[in-house]
Structure formats: structure tokens, C-alpha cells
């Protein structure tokens, strides 16, 4: 089966060491001046966990989006950046230089950033600082436990039969196999901005018209367990006029890295639909 995707490998950045792949829109989208940017996350290189970002880019090409997936400095296929910048500052510079490259070479001036897990750190910072960002998708990003979270955790959670069945099955297997129970992965444990800083940042982003999509998977249910939890966190920091610029999608059947094809398809469908509402 022939594959008509138009993709090209690119090397960019002020140190000439950032490596990525640009997927161009298919014929109907030629001339589009908007792009999605997604940086690698952790030790997954720019193809993404289980090729998630490859599938994302190729799906979005049908909707008229350019997509750049790339590796942050020193990770994946990209070269380390010389100098003394810490990882966070370096990631922000990398993403900014990705936008600069697209602006220079493809005359694109409106961007949507996608960050998964720790990738939300740079996506959040650049979205806050750069007016070229029309929207951002934060997948299993910052979470803050609220009163509602605790209520749900100690009520709804314990009324779910499937959860109890799975708990029992795991206990039985652990006992029968003498395996150690698997701990909560420490990949989820990292530093977030303070709650007040987060509120202020989101207020600034949405106040200038930037659209935000927050996606939470089932793996994050120990941190985020109800669609309204984000709005409980934001409280009155966000005026009603700006709240409409925030969307939350819950994917309770998905794990943190979208291990199954069905999970990935579900995520890509939600993102594509949301991007269809972006005026970029």
C-alpha cells in the first residue's frame, strides 16, 4: 500500500543539534499556516510512546495541520546544547526555537503545543510566554487535589465493582506467584508550580485568548479523578468568559503512555476534534 505522507527530517536550533520530523498537511491542507509541535517525553524519542506522535502527526495532516515532532537537547536523536542552562530552561529554548524554525521556513505563525507528563513543563512555560501559541494540550500534566477530589476518592472510588475485582485478582496473583506487588511508578512524582501560580498562569493564557485542553488518563486517577477538578482548582481565578477556552477530557480507560492502539486512537480523536475548534 503506498503511503503518500509528506514528511521530512529537519535539523535546527541555535546549536544546530535539534532533530525532528515535519509532517506536512496533505493536498487539501496545502497553504495552511498553523502547526502542532510536540517534543519527546523522557526517554521516549520523538516518535513518541508506541509511535503516538507519528500517528498524531499523520492523522493531523488530514486536517490541514503541519506537525513538528522533535527531540529536546541531549535526548533522542538531538545533540546536547552547550552552556549552563538547566533542563527546564533548555526545554523552553528548544520549543521556542522549534517555533522559530517553522516561522522562518514555513511562514507559520500560530502554534499548538502538546505536552505529555513532564513535557507539559516546557509546553506550559512557552504557552505562557509566547503569543504565537494559539492553544496547548496538556496530557497528564499539572494536578492539584481538591476537596472534591477527596470526596470522590472516598466515595465513588469504593463503589466501583470493577476496581474491587481487579484489586482482588492482583492480590491473588501476587500471593500465588510470590511476586512483589508493583509500586506506583515514580515517573509520576515531580515538582509542580504552586497552586496560586498555576491559577495565575492559566488566567493569563486564557485571558489573551489561548485555548487549553487538559487530558487526564486512568493512570492519573490517584491525582485527578473528576472532570471538574481542574475548575475546582482554578476557583474564581478564571472569569466565565475565559472558562470557555478550557476543555477537559477524561480517558479513564487509558494508561499514562497509551499502551494500546485503541487508547491512542481515542486520544488522537479527542485532540483532532478539539483542534477543529481552534481558530489558528
Amino acid at each position, binding site marked *: 500500500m*503506498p503511503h503518500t*505522507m509528506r514528511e521530512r527530517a529537519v535539523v535546527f536550533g541555535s546549536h544546530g543539534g535539534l532533530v525532528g*520530523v515535519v509532517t506536512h498537511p496533505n493536498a487539501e491542507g496545502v497553504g495552511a499556516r498553523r502547526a502542532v509541535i510536540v517534543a519527546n517525553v523522557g*526517554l521516549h524519542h520523538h*516518535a513518541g510512546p508506541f*509511535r503516538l506522535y507519528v500517528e498524531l502527526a499523520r492523522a493531523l495532516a488530514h486536517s490541514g495541520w503541519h506537525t513538528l515532532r522533535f527531540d529536546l537537547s541531549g535526548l533522542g536523536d538531538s545533540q546536547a546544547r552547550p552552556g549552563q542552562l538547566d533542563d527546564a530552561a533548555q526545554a523552553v529554548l528548544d520549543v521556542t526555537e522549534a517555533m522559530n524554525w517553522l516561522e522562518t521556513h514555513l511562514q507559520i505563525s500560530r502554534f499548538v503545543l502538546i505536552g505529555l507528563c513532564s513535557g507539559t513543563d516546557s509546553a506550559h512555560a512557552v504557552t505562557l510566554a509566547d503569543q504565537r501559541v494559539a492553544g496547548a494540550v496538556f496530557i497528564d500534566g499539572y494536578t492539584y487535589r481538591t476537596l472534591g477530589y477527596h470526596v470522590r476518592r472516598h466515595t465513588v472510588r469504593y463503589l*466501583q465493582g470493577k476496581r474491587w475485582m481487579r484489586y482482588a485478582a492482583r492480590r491473588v496473583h501476587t500471593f500465588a506467584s510470590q511476586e512483589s506487588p508493583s509500586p506506583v511508578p515514580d515517573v509520576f512524582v515531580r515538582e509542580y508550580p504552586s497552586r496560586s501560580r498555576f491559577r495565575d498562569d492559566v488566567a493569563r493564557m486564557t485571558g489573551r485568548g489561548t485555548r487549553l485542553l487538559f487530558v487526564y488518563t486512568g493512570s492519573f486517577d490517584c491525582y485527578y479523578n473528576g472532570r471538574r477538578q481542574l475548575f475546582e482548582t482554578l476557583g474564581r481565578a478564571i472569569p466565565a468568559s475565559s472558562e470557555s477556552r478550557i476543555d477537559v477530557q477524561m480517558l479513564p480507560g487509558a494508561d499514562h503512555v497509551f499502551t494500546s492502539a*485503541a487508547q491512542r486512537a481515542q486520544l488522537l480523536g479527542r485532540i483532532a476534534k478539539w483542534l477543529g475548534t481552534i481558530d489558528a
Partner: protein
Amino acid sequence: MFFGDTGRQLFGVYHPAATARAKRTGIVLCYPAPQEYRQAHWAYRKLAQLLADDGFHVLRFDYFATGDSAGSSIEASLAQWIQDVATAATELRDVAGVSRISLVGMRLGAAIAARACALTTPVSDLVLWDPAVTGRAYLEQLDALHASALRATRYPQDDSREPNELLGFPTPEALRAAIAEVDLSQEPYGSPSRVFLICAADRSEFQRLRGRFEKSGAPFDYAFVEDATLASGGDLRSDTLLAHRVPAAIGAYLACHTP
């Protein structure tokens, strides 16, 4: 860079020789199967750079329907991957101007390299790094890891998983069947100038393969180098193969045996 036929393009990273005088033999690195690709990526990049520093032109690339290459994961095919090695070898000859090609493959990548050597690609050195000696044992190991990963998933259990998925990747029945037929201890491996079997784990299947090559009388070397390995299993969702000694040993071996 992308290379190969339009519509079936392969993604590769070319590491030009970093010495003033490059060797005439280029090296194509053959990745393991998609399930072990992420874990091996760091080690492959390290190996490629070591080889480039030793004067080799190196190409590491993604097979069709894997990584950044064209094709969706469901289209993965062992026969295609073997053909892709030939495409990559041609590309490296064209780009670097080398006259000979050596192949390095790890795990299933070793079996793919050996098949390519037998079927499609004239090869100088054939380096087998912790090879998947038999496809059946290899699949059994991945199946066990897959079952373990499903058990380890905290609630909610994903009910939507396709039955032919293996550690996150669609694995069509035809691909499983082709992998199951792999048996490096029996099948032809072409006529490379030398075979180098390098293992980071002490496994009986490696010794069986070593015996096969030693009996053949063809130029053959074996090394056991204690290092990180994917051959012993582990959590393929989180582990990264931080191998240092094996890449260094492969680099030293090829530098020594290659004009």
C-alpha cells in the same frame, strides 16, 4: 533523513565518519523489533557515535512501519524489514561512498541482519548482539512480559486492547508466524567475511549458536561481555538499555578487523 522508495520511505540517522580518513566499510545498525526499539535507542545512538569516532560511516534506521518510517504499525512484516536492510545498505553506499557494508543487529535485529546477509545484502562483518536465536523463545519472552505488564496496570484495566497487540504494538498473525520460524542455529546466514557473536548474558541458546558457528569452520569470533541486556527480560515499558561495554567492544572489534 528519509530514503527509499516514494511512499515507503524509511527514516534514518546518518553518522558520518569523524576521522580525517574514513574506512571503506560502512556499518548499518539493525534495530530490534518495535517492542524493544525504545529501550535500545540510546545504546544504538551511542554505538553509532563510537563507530563514527573510529572512522566508520554509520546508518541507523527504522524499518518500515516502525519508528518514523512510513507505514502504520499493523503493516509490520519481517520480510519487509529484511528488504529494508538492503535499502539502507544501498543508501549508505550512495551517501558515504563506501564499497562494503557490515551489519550490526541486536535481539530480533540480529536475526534480521543474518537473514539480510543470506538473502539480500552482501556483508563484510555480521555482528550479532544478544541475538534472538529462536523466534519461538523470543515471542514467549515478549508474551510473558506482556502478560506481566497487563497485571501491573493499576485500575482501570483497559478492555479495548486488540488481541494481537504485543507490548503496545499491533503484531499481526503473519508477523508472529514469521518471527516464530526464526532459528539462527539452523538457518543460512549467507557468506559474511566474519561473524562476531557478542553476548551480555550467559544463556544456553547463545552457546548453542556459538557451537553452530564454530563447527562451520567459517571465520567466527565470540565474546561474553557483562553488560546491560534485553535478553533477560525486564520491564520493557520503563527500562532503557544503558549498555556501555558491549558497544565499546563492538567498536573495538570492527575497528580492529576492518581496513
